[in-house]
Every structure is written in C-alpha cells, then in structure tokens.
C-alpha cells in the first residue's frame, strides 16, 4: 500500500474483541500448545507408526490439554471453563449429529444389499476399476450437494461405494480421495451446507448469490479433479481381492439392492426441499428400513437385535420376538443390528472432536489465533493481491489446524471480513475465498473431520465383509495427496488472487441482504 505523504495518517483501528481470557507463560502463542501437541501426536501415531486408532488420538488431545494447563497463568479454572466453552459450541454437536445419523443410514443401506447392487450395476454396465474413482467422485459430489453435509456423505460413500470399488479392483487410496473430493465439492457448493451458510452470514452476503458466484471456482477445480481421477484410476492398481471371494460376492450381488437409490433420493429430496438435515436423513432411514423389510433385504433382527442373558426376567416369554435373542455367552449380551452398528463407529470420534474443539477454543481465547491473524494483516496484506493471498493462506491454515471446518470458519470469518473490507472486496468474493479453503482443508489431513469420519466408517468394513481384509483399510496420511478437489480448489483461489479472476469490488456489485440463520 503506498503512502500518500501528508494525507491521512494511518489510524486503522480494530474493534475490541474482548482480549484473551486465558493468559499463558511464554506469551499468547503458548495457547496453541494443546492443538500443536495433538497434531504432532496425530502425525506420529497415524503417519509414522501407522496406528489409526481413534482412542489413541483421544489420549493425545487429553495429554495436550493437561500439559497445556501448566502453562496457563492464574486460576486454572478459566482454562478449564474455556475447554467447556469450546466443547458446547453448536458446530461441534452439529458435526456429531450428522455423523451418527449418516452412520445409521449408511449401515442400513449396506445391510440392505446396496453395495451388492452397486457391484452388480458396475459389472453389468462394464464400469471397470479405472473409471470407478472418477464416477464415485461425481456421485459423491451430487449426493453431498443435495444433502449439504460432507461428513455424512463421506460416511455413506465409504460404507457403500468404497467396498464396491475395492472389490472391482479400484485403488483404495484413490477411491477414498475421490469420496473426500466429492464431499468437498458439495460442502462448498450446497446451499444447505453449514459452511456455505456460515461463509455467507459472516460476510453479509445472501446464500443464493454466494452459491452462484462460487460456482466458477468449484467447477474449474472439479473438471480438473475428474480428469485427475480418470488418469490416476488407469495408472494406479487396486488390491488383489481373492478371486474366489470376488466371484462369490459377484454371484451374490443382486440388482434389488439398488432400490436404495430411492432411499438416497429421499434424503436428497427432503434436504433440497429445505428440511433440516436430521429430518432429511431420518426420512432416508425410514424409507431404507421399509425397503429392507418389504423386499426381504434385512429382517427386523438385522436392524435392531437385543441379545439378552438367560436369566433376564422377561426374556424367556418374549423370545419369539424377531428382535430378541437369548444368548448363553455373557460376552454376547448387548444390542446389535444396523442401527447400533451404524452409531457405534462414531462414538469415540465424537468424544475426540469435542476435545479438539475445546483445545481450539483455548487457542482462540488464549490469543494465539489473534497473534497469527494480526501479524498477517499488518505484514502480508499490503496490497489487494497480497490481501487475497493472505485471506487464502490464513483461512487454509486455520482450517488445516481445527478439525471441524465449520468451527474454524466461524472463528476466522471476522478476519476475512476485516482484510477484505479494507480493500473493498464485496461479500461474495470474501465468502468464496473463505469457504473454498474451509471446504478443502476439512477433508485432507488425517485429523480433519471428513477424513476421520470416513476412516471410522472404513474401520467397520472388515467386520461387515468376509473378503475385506484389515490391510485394505486406507491409512489416513496416505490419502492426503489424492484429495484432488481440495488441493485444486486451493490452487484455483491462489491463481484467482494472483490474476484477479472472479474478483469483485463493492463498487462492482453489492451482495444482497443476508438471510441470517
């Protein structure tokens, strides 16, 4: 920014943000310790030692939070209360709700033979292993754009399309990357996506206008990503599934499982009709249960089964119920079935995410977040091009650190607004830069919410299919380079900042009134 000499002095003031509420020995930067410790732990555990255990990550964030407390000044109750403040944020609970509902839905479809139907269709249509990732990317993108939750879509597609693709010989890592890419596409573009809404609201822009204006960035990245999956699909080999197992599964694969396309359509349809995501997936669950029962794809006991001990008072008289089994083995006592199995995979993950959001709140309240952003505003955003690059960089960095991308977006939204308004960029441009990085970075790294959700769903597959071996589960760090839509979306915005592509100033067009949510 040039200096105009005797003209106005620089009195750029910042609104009072309330200041940090937790102080640390070593300065504000130390408040990032719990999150930084967790990221190092996650990299060592998942990447270097190849242990994809969510429980281990929970221990990692707990140790980070406990050690971080020793750096806090004054009464430690402020530190503890800040953890609670973070954990009770609606965004964290929203993600957990989406995971659990989507987990039940995906398990119902899986147990209802949808994977078999997909395999049958791909086999009949002659879709080979090479094209399967590219097609999966497109379908995941369409599905996510319809339902608005990339986390839910990741879970559903890992449970359904992933085993089908692996069986047909597609590369598992590439396939997981394609699913995450589809989730990014929809998370970024869907009008009902929580990140779309947050980006519009924090930048004072209308959601319809935001979606329309971001289409150009999303579609450019998507076309390139699609081509990438076609090329990589031909170049990367799949895992050898035992020929006999493959043959048996193909023989058992039946077109009737494809009836669950209607279950998926029910979710998309109700979501597009403006219903809440909980309601939309609940309708999908109702339709899926009905189809499973009516077409004999799964019985009531497959959907929910009570395994009671012999000495249970009312178990004997009611043993004839299809949802009740009396078991002799005490270890077998419990509740099973699609609904339970669908939920079970996400219980540990839910705890992990709550703790990470608590640690992120420590970073925000402790001031490390402000240090980074104030420094970038003062030193990097020196002209409009650098300002846009700074917006891309800081949004990407914060989203890469904070597991739940909506939470990261809520936190950084005001700073994107501040930098963008200084150069009179309009609300659409600001919202698009913000959400592009938010969607992309939420599905790339091993600690990203989308990757964790998909990975949790994948860990259940060896128990679901005899032929699916533990070695077929993708280690999250391996998928990082193959989330093409994510990397390309960031690249598109870097090029857009450098060239001015898609840039709009307030004098060009003002965003319409935002419908506050």
């Amino acid at each position, binding site marked *: *920014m*040039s200096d*105009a000499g005797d*003209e*106005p*002095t*620089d*009195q*750029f*003031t910042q*609104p009072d943000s309330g200041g940090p509420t937790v102080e640390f020995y070593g300065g504000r930067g130390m408040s990032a310790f719990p999150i930084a410790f967790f990221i190092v732990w996650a990299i060592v555990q998942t990447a270097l030692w190849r242990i994809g255990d969510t429980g281990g990550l929970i221990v990692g964030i707990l140790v980070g939070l406990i050690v971080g407390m020793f750096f806090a000044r004054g009464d430690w109750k402020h530190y503890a209360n800040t953890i609670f403040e973070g954990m009770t944020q609606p965004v964290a609970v929203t993600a957990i709700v989406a995971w659990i509902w989507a987990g039940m839905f995906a398990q119902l479809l899986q147990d209802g033979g949808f994977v078999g139907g997909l395999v049958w269709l791909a086999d009949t249509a002659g879709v080979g292993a090479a094209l399967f990732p590219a097609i999966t990317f497109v379908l995941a993108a369409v599905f996510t754009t319809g339902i608005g939750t990339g986390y839910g879509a990741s879970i559903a597609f890992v449970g359904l399309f992933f085993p089908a693709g692996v069986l047909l010989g597609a590369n598992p890592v590439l396939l997981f990357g394609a699913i995450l890419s589809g989730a990014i596409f929809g998370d970024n573009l869907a009008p009902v996506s929580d990140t779309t809404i947050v980006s519009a609201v*924090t*930048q*004072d822009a209308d959601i*319809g*206008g935001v979606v*329309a*204006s971001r*289409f*150009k960035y999303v579609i450019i990245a998507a076309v390139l990503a699609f081509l990438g999956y076609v090329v990589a699909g031909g170049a990367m080999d799949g895992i050898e599934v035992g020929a006999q197992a493959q043959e048996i599964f193909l023989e058992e694969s039946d077109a009737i499982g494809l009836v669950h396309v209607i279950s998926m359509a029910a979710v998309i349809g109700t979501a597009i009709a403006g219903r809440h995501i909980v309601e939309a997936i609940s309708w999908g669950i109702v339709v899926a249960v009905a189809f499973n029962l009516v077409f004999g794809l799964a019985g009531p006991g497959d959907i929910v089964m009570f395994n009671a001990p012999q000495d249970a008072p009312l178990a004997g008289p009611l043993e004839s119920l299809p949802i009740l089994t009396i078991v002799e083995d005490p270890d077998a006592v419990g509740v099973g079935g699609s609904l339970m199995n669908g939920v079970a995979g996400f219980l540990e993950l839910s705890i992990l995410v709550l703790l990470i959001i608590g640690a992120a709140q420590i970073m925000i309240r402790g001031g490390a977040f402000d240090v980074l952003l104030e420094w970038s505003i003062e030193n990097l955003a020196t*002209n*409009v*091009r650098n300002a846009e690059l700074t917006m891309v960089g800081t949004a990407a960095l914060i989203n890469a650190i904070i597991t739940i991308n909506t939470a990261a977006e809520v936190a950084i*939204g*005001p*700073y994107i*607004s*501040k930098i963008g*308004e*200084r*150069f*009179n960029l309009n*609300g*659409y441009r600001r919202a698009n830069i913000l959400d592009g990085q938010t969607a992309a970075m939420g599905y790339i790294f091993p600690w990203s919410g989308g990757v964790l959700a998909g990975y949790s769903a994948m860990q259940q597959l060896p128990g679901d299919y005899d032929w699916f071996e533990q070695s077929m589960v993708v280690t999250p760090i391996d998928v990082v380079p193959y989330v093409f839509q994510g990397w390309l979306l960031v690249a598109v915005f870097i090029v857009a900042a450098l*060239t*001015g*592509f*898609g*840039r*709009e*100033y*307030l*004098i*060009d*067009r*003002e965003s319409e009134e935002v419908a506050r949510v």
Partner: protein
Amino acid sequence: MSIFDKYLTGWTFRANRPSLEVGSEIDVFISETNGSAGRAYIGDTELLVEGAGPETVEKQVRVRVTSFDETTATGEGDLVEVVGESSYSG
C-alpha cells in the same frame, strides 16, 4: 439480475487498480483517517474522502467522486453519508 446471470457474473479478470468515474456516487469502506479526511482502498486504487472523520473508519460510506487520475490510480471525493457497518462488527 436473473439467477442465470448470477452464475455468469465474475468470469473475468478484474484489475488491481479499478477506475472510478468522476461524478458518480459509490459506497466504500473507509480504512483510515487523519481526522478530517479519510482514505478508502478499492483494490489498490486510493480514494481520499473529504469529511470522513474517525467516526467513519471501518464504516461503509457513500462518496461522490470529484476527481480521478488513471495513471496513479488515486482520486478524491466528498462524503455524502454513512450507509453501513462492517460485517465483522455485528
């Protein structure tokens, strides 16, 4: 603007230093002030706004453009009124 037009808007490369039309009224955010005049940046174009005091900093104001130099991308204008708040101030 129709929905279709909204999808087609912005498929262009916008200049770092946009031109301003003398006599036009534009709404911009004031980023700094010396007490009697404020400065707004539209991209890397600088607009000196007479009458924009501290109360206008980080506010959206309507400005009547009185002069503009293409070569230096600097202009001057008069404050008309405050029209809006920053989106991050609430």
